[in-house]
C-alpha cells in the first residue's frame, strides 16, 4: 500500500525536517507532507477523550432526533400565508415569491454577504495568482476539449432558462448563477479561459452589479409605494425578472472569482514569503516605511 511506503519515508526523513529550514525545493519527504495530505491523527488529542465526546454527542443527537420526531403536529401557518398571497406576488413559484418578494430584504443581504466573502478572499491572496496560466496554455486533451465544447453552451442555455422559468417552476437566479459558475469553473480549470482577476473593471463591475441593481430597485420603487423594496402592484413580475437576470450574472462571477482567487501556498524557497512575511497588505499600505528588507520584519 502506498500508505506504508510513505510512512517509512516520512519517518526516515523526520529528523532532517527539523534540522534545516532550507529544505530542497523539489520534493518534500517529511512529516509535513504526511500531515498536509493526510491526517495521521497524532494531533487530534487522546482517543479516550474523542470517544467520550463522540458518545456524549451521539446521546445528545439521539435525544434531539427523538424530540424532533415526536413533536406534536402544528398548524401550517406559513405555507397558508404564502399560498394566500401568492397571486399578488407577481410570480407563481412560491419559493421565488418568498425569495424575491415577501423576504426580498433577506435576499438583498445575502447578496451583500456574497460581496463580503469576495472581499475577504481578495484580501488574502496578496496578489499571487494560483491559477495564472496564460490563456492558450491549455490541457492538450481532445476528450476534455470535446466535453467542454458540449457542456459549456448547454450550461449557458440551461442557466438562461432556469433564471427565466424560476417564476413558474423550480429555478431562479441562484440556481442559474450556480450553473453558470460551474461552467465558468470548468473553463478556468482547463485553461480555456484566462482566470478573471479582480484587477479588471469588468469583473468588479459584474460583482457589484447584483447588489447595486437590487438596491436601486429598492430605492427606485419608493416614490410609488413609500416603502423600501415594496413593488408597486402590477410591477412585481418585471422587477423580479430584471433583478434575477442581473443577480444570475453577478452570482456566477462571484463564484468563479472565489474559485480563482484561492490563496497561493508558496513553495519553501518562494520569494513571496521573503518579500512579505507579514502577509499584511493593509499594514504595508499604512506603514510603507515599515522596513521590509529581505524578509526581516522591522516594524
Amino acid at each position, binding site marked *: 500500500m502506498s500508505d506504508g511506503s510513505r510512512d517509512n519515508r516520512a519517518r526516515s526523513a523526520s529528523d532532517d525536517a527539523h534540522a534545516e529550514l532550507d529544505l530542497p*525545493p*523539489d*520534493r*518534500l519527504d517529511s512529516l*509535513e*507532507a504526511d500531515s*498536509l*495530505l*493526510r*491526517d*495521521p*491523527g497524532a494531533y487530534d488529542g487522546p482517543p479516550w477523550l474523542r470517544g467520550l465526546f463522540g458518545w456524549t454527542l451521539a446521546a445528545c443527537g439521539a435525544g434531539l432526533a427523538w424530540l424532533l420526531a415526536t413533536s406534536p403536529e402544528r398548524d401550517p401557518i406559513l405555507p397558508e400565508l404564502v399560498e394566500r398571497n401568492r397571486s399578488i406576488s407577481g410570480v407563481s*413559484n412560491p*419559493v421565488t415569491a418568498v425569495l424575491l418578494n415577501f423576504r426580498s430584504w433577506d435576499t438583498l443581504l445575502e447578496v451583500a454577504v456574497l460581496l463580503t466573502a469576495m472581499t475577504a478572499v481578495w484580501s488574502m491572496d*496578496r*496578489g*499571487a*495568482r*494560483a*491559477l*495564472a*496560466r*496564460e490563456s492558450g496554455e491549455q490541457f492538450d486533451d481532445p476528450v476534455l476539449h470535446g466535453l467542454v465544447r458540449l457542456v459549456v453552451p448547454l450550461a449557458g442555455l440551461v442557466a438562461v432558462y*432556469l433564471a427565466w422559468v*424560476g417564476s413558474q417552476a*423550480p*429555478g*431562479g437566479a*441562484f*440556481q442559474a448563477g*450556480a*450553473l453558470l*459558475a*460551474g461552467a465558468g*469553473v470548468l473553463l478556468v*480549470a482547463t485553461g480555456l479561459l484566462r482566470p478573471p482577476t*479582480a*484587477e479588471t473593471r469588468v469583473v468588479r463591475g459584474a460583482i457589484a452589479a447584483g447588489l447595486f441593481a437590487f438596491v436601486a430597485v429598492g430605492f427606485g420603487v419608493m416614490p410609488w409605494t413609500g416603502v423600501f423594496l415594496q413593488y408597486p402592484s402590477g410591477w412585481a413580475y418585471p422587477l423580479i425578472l430584471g433583478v434575477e437576470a442581473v443577480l444570475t450574472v453577478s452570482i456566477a462571477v462571484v*463564484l468563479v472569482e*472565489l*474559485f480563482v482567487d*484561492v*490563496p*497561493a*501556498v*508558496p*513553495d519553501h524557497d*518562494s*520569494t*513571496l514569503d*521573503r*518579500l*512579505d512575511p507579514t502577509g499584511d*497588505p*493593509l499594514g*504595508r*499600505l499604512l506603514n*510603507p516605511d*515599515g522596513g*521590509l528588507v529581505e524578509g526581516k520584519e522591522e516594524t
Partner: protein
Amino acid sequence: MSWGDWALDGAIALLLTGLAIRLLTTREVFEAIVLFVSLGLSLSLAWVRVGAPDLALAEAALGAGVTGALFLNAYGQLTRRVGEPGGDEPEPGMDDPDAGVSEPDEGGHSE
C-alpha cells in the same frame, strides 16, 4: 405512506449518515473531498424527496459543484506545496519576485 416510500427514504437517510461518518473519520484529504461531493449529490437527492426541487438544483450546482471545486482547488495547493506528481507545476509568476507583489507603498494589490 407505502413501504416503498419508507424504503427509499430510509435508504437515502442511511446513505447520508454513512457518507458523513466516513467523511469525518477518514484519514486522507482527497478521500474526504470526494466523499463530500458525494454527500452533496445525495443531499440533492434528499431535497427532491422532501419536496424542494429548487434546493435540489441549488445543492447539486453549489454544494457538490462549486464547493467541491473549491476544495479540490485548495487540495491542489497543498499538493503543489508538497511537490507531489499529481500537483501542478509551479505557476510561471512565482519565480519572479516582482510578479504578484507590488511596491510596499501600493499595498500589495495593483489596481
